[in-house]
């Protein structure tokens, strides 16, 4: 299959895309069905509420412990992997990560890359970058394979093709895989995908994967999957490149045990996935398979901005289970593509500003009713609603204001007029005389209230002051103000 250029959608057009998604009944039915399914599945895994809360405490403690020691742990992971014969690369930006991977491919004359699932590689848009340099990437996770074939991006971090029906996929396979008749039988479709991809595994020069967890004490990369494509990608080609957000390392292998349990149970409602693939180095002398070369790319790409701020650092506790999006009333209605970011849903709203800046992502934090469902299901207790409020504050902060840890794009939504209105509002409420004057004016002049009130009246009736204020009514009943 020829690699296609991905249409990167700027997150700044969020409102327009959300509107379009809401008006698409087929898309809405796909997401509603998927959300109901995933919520129910997760529910079956946590019959004991007390055990769940204890495990969440433990997950939070493991991730906070890891973040508290992050620089040392990264150095330790590097030393362990190097001692095992692997190479470790550090990438500050998406561009650097892409250049490192393209460099490895170029040095070996590699033309074909088979990919296990990796959201970090989606984040840096690796496929696009390599395609422009004559290196063909084939996604091998069934969901990713479907999404790549359609020239789209994943709409969910765990189930990338969640927005597609089996009829959509049947039509896609008929069109793109030579000699494939139309079928909408799921078993037939999966076997078609398996056959098409087997050849790609055998022919690939490089296998590329993500990493779910890394242990510093043993230098182990821990990969979680059900299909076996991750194992094939990291076993069959002669070179394995793993790419990992730098926050994913923990101190000890044993610390991953509660995290892995939280991940599979929260994500897809499984006690465990079919494969936990623990990689601690390249092929050793005498071994007959496995890659001869192992590379790990550690990616910053804005994560250190979140790390610098004590409150925002908790964003990096995330283990990418997707439970927050599965339970989000906004995500469930607009789907993943509307966000325009690699990571959609609540986690996308809080991580994307660090990766992309607030200019492009300021609208995301406001697309929330702050109902709190995301924070309640988060297996590592990230206080997502509080972080949304914080990001709103940063987006509205005066861009010239000096703060200890300024965010990229601080003040993207800042408006002098709005700031003035709020200053007037707080002044009026803080001074009784001013408040009385304001109240008198508001009740007497209510007929002058405009019918069009910016964004408010798009979906709501106009706000209009009552004819008589609460204070007036109280006074009539003989109660003091």
């Amino acid at each position, binding site marked *: 299959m020829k690699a296609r250029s991905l249409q990167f959608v700027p997150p700044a057009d969020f409102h327009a895309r959300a509107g379009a998604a809401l008006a698409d009944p087929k898309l809405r039915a796909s997401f509603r069905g998927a959300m109901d399914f995933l919520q129910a599945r997760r529910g079956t895994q946590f019959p004991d509420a007390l055990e769940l809360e204890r495990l969440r405490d433990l997950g939070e403690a493991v991730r*906070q412990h890891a973040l*508290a020691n992050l620089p040392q742990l990264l150095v330790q992971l590097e030393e362990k992997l190097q001692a095992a014969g692997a190479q470790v*690369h550090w990438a500050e930006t998406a561009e650097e990560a892409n250049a490192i991977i393209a460099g490895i491919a170029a040095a070996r004359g590699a033309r074909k890359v088979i990919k296990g699932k990796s959201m970090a590689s989606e984040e840096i848009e690796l496929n696009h970058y390599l395609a422009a340099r004559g290196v063909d990437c084939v996604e091998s996770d069934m969901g990713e394979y479907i999404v790549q074939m359609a020239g789209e991006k994943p709409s969910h971090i765990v189930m990338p093709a969640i927005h597609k029906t089996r009829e959509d996929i049947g039509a896609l396979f008929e069109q793109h895989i030579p000699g494939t008749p139309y079928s909408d039988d*799921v078993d037939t479709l999966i076997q078609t995908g398996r056959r098409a991809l*087997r050849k790609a595994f055998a022919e690939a020069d490089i296998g590329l994967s993500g990493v779910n967890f890394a242990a510093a004490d043993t230098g182990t990369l821990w990969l979680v999957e059900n299909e076996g494509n991750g194992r094939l990608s990291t076993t069959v080609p002669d070179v394995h490149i793993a790419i990992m957000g730098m926050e994913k390392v923990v101190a000890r292998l044993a610390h991953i045990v509660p995290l892995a349990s939280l991940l599979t149970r929260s994500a897809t409602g499984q006690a465990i996935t079919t*494969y936990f693939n623990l990689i601690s180095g390249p092929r050793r002398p005498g*071994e007959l*398979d496995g890659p001869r070369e192992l590379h790990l790319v550690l990616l910053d790409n804005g994560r250190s901005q979140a790390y610098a701020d004590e409150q925002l650092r908790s964003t990096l506790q995330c283990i990418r289970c997707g439970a927050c999006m599965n339970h989000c009333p906004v995500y469930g209605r607009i789907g993943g593509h509307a966000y325009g970011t690699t990571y959609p849903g609540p986690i996308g709203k809080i991580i994307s500003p660090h990766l992309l800046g607030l200019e492009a992502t300021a609208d995301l934090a406001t697309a929330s009713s702050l109902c709190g469902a995301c924070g309640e299901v988060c297996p590592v207790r990230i206080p997502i609603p509080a972080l949304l409020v914080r990001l709103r504050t940063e987006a509205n902060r005066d861009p010239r204001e000096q703060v200890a840890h300024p965010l990229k794009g601080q003040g993207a939504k800042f408006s002098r007029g709005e700031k003035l209105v709020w200053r007037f509002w707080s002044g009026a409420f803080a001074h009784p005389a001013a408040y009385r004057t304001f109240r008198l004016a508001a009740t007497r002049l209510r007929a002058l209230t405009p019918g069009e009130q910016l964004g408010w009246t798009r979906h709501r009736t106009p706000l209009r002051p009552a004819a008589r204020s609460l204070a007036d009514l109280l006074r009539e009943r003989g109660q003091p103000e």
Partner: protein
Amino acid sequence: MMHARERMLGRLRAAAPAPSDDAALDRRIGAHYSAAPPQSAALVDAFERALVASRADVWRATAADWPAQLAQRIAAHGARRLLLDPAGAEGAALLAALPPTVAPLPFRAPLEQWTDELFDTVDAGFTVARSGIAATGTLVLAPDPGTPRTVSLVPPLHIALVYADTLHATLFDAVQAERWGDGMPSNLVLVSGPSKTSDIQQTLAYGAHGPRWMWVVIVTERGTP
């Protein structure tokens, strides 16, 4: 990219809170998973139940009986070429019991010398698990030169033999008892059933990229050597 490394670490070090100590967290995790170890029979029951729920075929056998039973099942399944390690005691026992319709095949050369043959002509792979995990129905496989990683991955049928006396109650118990933290092989795989996916409309399908069928033989008594 040495400068990238120094800049990334510099930013993290400048912002890092007070480092915390492993020991307290280790105790907490240990306490979470501490429970009275179940009786051996209960472990085997739980292990079997969980594996069956993951759509594996599981049966129990004695050390004396399993080779002939397994050989017969393999033949009945229609498998013609079976990967096994003839140098291992279990591989040799199975080899001796195979009927002429099933050709035993050692992993004879580095993968890249016979990738197409392995991918296209081998029907089954036989492995001996290092241990098992009862709570989740999981096999712990440590690939080695006799039984490399692809044996449990590429053929459509994966057969694993596990000794009942190697079962741990939980993954945490396995990590502690086998001292994984002291050093890991280049690859260690935890397998809990056949390959599967629900990437198409949340509908479960088996044999996505790895084995479509998984058989597990639990050897309940090792017998006298």
